[in-house]
C-alpha cells in the first residue's frame, strides 16, 4: 500500500512539470512582453523598463541560468506570482482574499449536490421501471437540458428580485449564510439533474450483477443490499466523479459569483479574463492544476481502499 502511494507520488512530478511547461508556453511565449500595456499610455521609458525587469521579460526564454523558464519554475515552487497586471496588487494576496467567499459558496453546493444525488440515485435505481423512476429520469433530463445561465437568471429574477426572498447581490454587511443561500440552491438545482442521472446509471449497472441476487437470496432487505453491497461497488466510478470535482471548488463558480457579485476567485478570474491579465490567470491555472494533481492522488488512494482487487496488484 505504501509503495503504491509512493509510486503515485512520483508520478505526479511529470504532471506538474507538464503543467508548468504548458502554462509557460501559453503565458510567456504566447502572451509575451506586455510591459508597455501594463505601464499605461503615459508611462515613461524607465517605468516600462522597470516593469519589464520586474516581470523578467528582459531575460531569455529558456537557455540561460536566469532564463524566464527557470524563473517560472522557482516562482511556482515558492508560490510567488508577482503582481497583477490589472491593479498591481500582489496576486497571492488577491487569491487569499478570494478563497474564502468562493469556498463558502462551492463547498455547500458540492456537498448538497453529491449527497442528494447519491441518495436519490440509490432509491431511483432500486425503483427502476416504476413510475417514480420514469418521473425522476424525466426531471433530471429536463434539468440537464436547461442552460445554466437560465437557471441563474430565472432564479435571481424571481426569487430575489421579484419576490424578495433572498438578497440579489452580495453586500459586505450581509452574513455569509444570507448571501450564499440562493446561489447555492441554484447551483444544486442546476447540477442535480446531471449528477443524479450519472449515479443512477452507475447504480443500475451494479444492480444487474449476480452478487446482488445472492444478497437477496440470503434474505437481506433491499435497503441493506443497496447500501452495503451495491454502493461499495458503485463507489469506484462515483469516486472519480466526486473527488476530482473538489479541486474546482477552489476556483469558485465563475458564473454564480459574477451574477451575485460575490468577491471570490471566480469573480477574480472573470475580471482577469476580461483584462487579459495573464499574471492572475497564470497563477490560478497553476494552483488549480496542483490541486487537481493532489486530488488525483487522493482519488487513487480511495480506489485502493474501496476495491481490494486493486491494492493487491
Amino acid at each position, binding site marked *: 500500500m505504501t509503495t503504491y502511494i509512493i509510486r503515485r507520488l512520483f508520478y505526479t512530478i*511529470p*504532471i506538474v512539470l*507538464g*503543467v508548468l511547461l*504548458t*502554462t509557460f508556453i*501559453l503565458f510567456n511565449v*504566447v502572451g509575451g512582453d506586455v510591459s508597455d500595456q501594463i505601464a499605461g499610455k503615459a508611462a515613461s521609458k524607465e517605468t516600462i523598463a522597470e516593469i519589464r525587469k520586474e516581470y523578467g521579460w528582459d531575460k531569455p526564454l529558456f537557455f540561460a541560468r536566469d532564463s524566464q523558464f527557470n524563473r517560472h519554475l522557482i516562482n511556482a515552487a515558492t508560490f510567488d506570482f508577482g503582481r497583477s497586471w490589472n491593479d498591481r496588487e500582489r496576486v497571492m494576496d488577491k487569491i487569499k482574499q478570494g478563497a474564502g467567499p468562493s469556498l463558502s459558496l462551492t463547498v455547500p453546493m458540492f456537498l448538497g449536490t453529491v449527497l442528494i444525488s447519491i441518495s436519490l440515485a440509490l432509491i431511483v435505481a432500486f425503483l427502476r421501471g416504476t413510475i417514480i423512476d420514469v418521473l425522476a*429520469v424525466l426531471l433530471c*433530463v*429536463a434539468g*440537464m*437540458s*436547461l*442552460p*445554466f*445561465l*437560465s437557471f441563474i*437568471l430565472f432564479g435571481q*429574477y424571481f426569487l430575489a*428580485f421579484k419576490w424578495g426572498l433572498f438578497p440579489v447581490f452580495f453586500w459586505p454587511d450581509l452574513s455569509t449564510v444570507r448571501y450564499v443561500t440562493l446561489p447555492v440552491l441554484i447551483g444544486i438545482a442546476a447540477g442535480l439533474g*446531471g449528477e443524479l*442521472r450519472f449515479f443512477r446509471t452507475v447504480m443500475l449497472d451494479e444492480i*444487474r450483477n449476480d452478487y446482488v441476487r445472492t444478497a437477496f437470496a440470503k434474505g437481506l432487505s433491499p435497503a441493506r443490499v443497496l447500501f452495503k453491497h451495491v454502493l461499495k461497488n458503485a463507489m469506484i*466510478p462515483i469516486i*472519480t466523479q466526486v473527488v476530482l470535482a473538489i479541486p*474546482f471548488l477552489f*476556483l469558485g463558480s*465563475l*458564473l454564480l459569483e459574477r*451574477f451575485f457579485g460575490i468577491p471570490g476567485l471566480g469573480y477574480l*478570474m*472573470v475580471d482577469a*479574463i*476580461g483584462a487579459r491579465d495573464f499574471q492572475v*490567470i497564470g497563477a*490560478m*491555472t497553476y494552483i*488549480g*492544476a*496542483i490541486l*487537481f*494533481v493532489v486530488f*488525483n492522488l487522493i482519488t487513487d488512494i480511495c480506489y485502493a481502499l474501496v476495491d481490494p482487487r486493486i491494492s493487491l496488484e
Partner: protein
Amino acid sequence: MSEQSKKLPKGRSLWSDGIHRLAGHKLAMAGLVVIAAYFLLAAFIYISELCNWKISFLQWGDKIGREYEPPNAKNIIGTDFLGRSVLRKTIYGTKISITVAFLASILSIAIGVPLGAIAGYFRGAVDEIIVWLYTTLSSIPYILLILAFALVLKDKAINLHWAGLGTLELRGIASVYLAMGLTSWVGICRLIRGEVIKHKDREYVLAAKSYGCGDGRIITRHLIPNVFHIVIIDFSLRFVSFIQAEVILSFLGLGEKNSPSWGAMIDTARLDLPKGYWWEMTAATLAIFFISLALNVFGDALRDSLDPKLRIQ
C-alpha cells in the same frame, strides 16, 4: 418430424435488436424527430446562404417593428432592442449552435476514443504517456484552456497542403470551437480507457487472443463494440454541453459576434430582464432546452437499447 421443429428462429445481431427496440420507444423517436428537425434547419440555412436564396424567416437583420415589442399577433416572440424579429433570430441561431457542437463533438470523440482504447489496452509506456497528456490538460481549468487555445489559433491559417487539403482558415469564432474539440477529448478518453481496462482481461478477449486475433483486431472488433455504448451516451451528453458552453462563452465575450446566437440572446437578457423584457431570453432558453432534451432522451434510450445485458434472453 413436423415442420415446426425444423424452423430455427432467426437470430438478431445486437444492433438490429437494439434499433428494433429503440424504434418502439416512442419518446426516443419523438426526440429523434426533434433532433433531425434542428439539424435539417441548420443544413437548410447553410444551403440557402450558399445559393443566395432570400427566405423571409431567415432575414434576422431586418427591422420589422418597434424596439422591444412584446409578443403579439404580428411578431410571435416580439422584437429586440433594434426592432428585429426575435423569432427569426432564434431560428438563425440554430445554424451556429448545431455546427459548433457537432464539429466539436466529432473532434473530441475522434481523438479521445482511439487514445483511450490504446492506452487501456496496451498499458505500459503508451498508457503512461497518454494519461500524462490528458492529466496535464485536464489539470488546467477548462475555460482558461479554451481561452489560451483561442488566442493561439485566432485568425491563423493552418497549412494543410501536406494532407492535400489546401489551407484552412480560422475566422473568428472557429478558433474557439476548434479549441473546444481539442480540449474536450479528455472525458471520453478516460471513460474508454477505464472500460477497456475492465474488459481486456475478460474471457472473451482471452478467447479471441487464443485463436490468433491480433491486437488491432481485438480492439476494433471486440473491445470497442463492447464499450461503444459509452461513446454514444457521451456524444449525446457532450453535444448538449457544447451547446450550453456557447452560452457561457458568449457571456465571457468570446462568442459569435456577427450573427445571432442563442448565447448572445441570453446574454443581453441580463440587462433586459430587470426592465421586464423577458421574451428574447425565453425564446433562446426554450430553443436550447428542446434540443438538449431531445438529445438526452434519445441518448438514454439508445444506450438502453444497445446495452447487451438488457437484451431479451
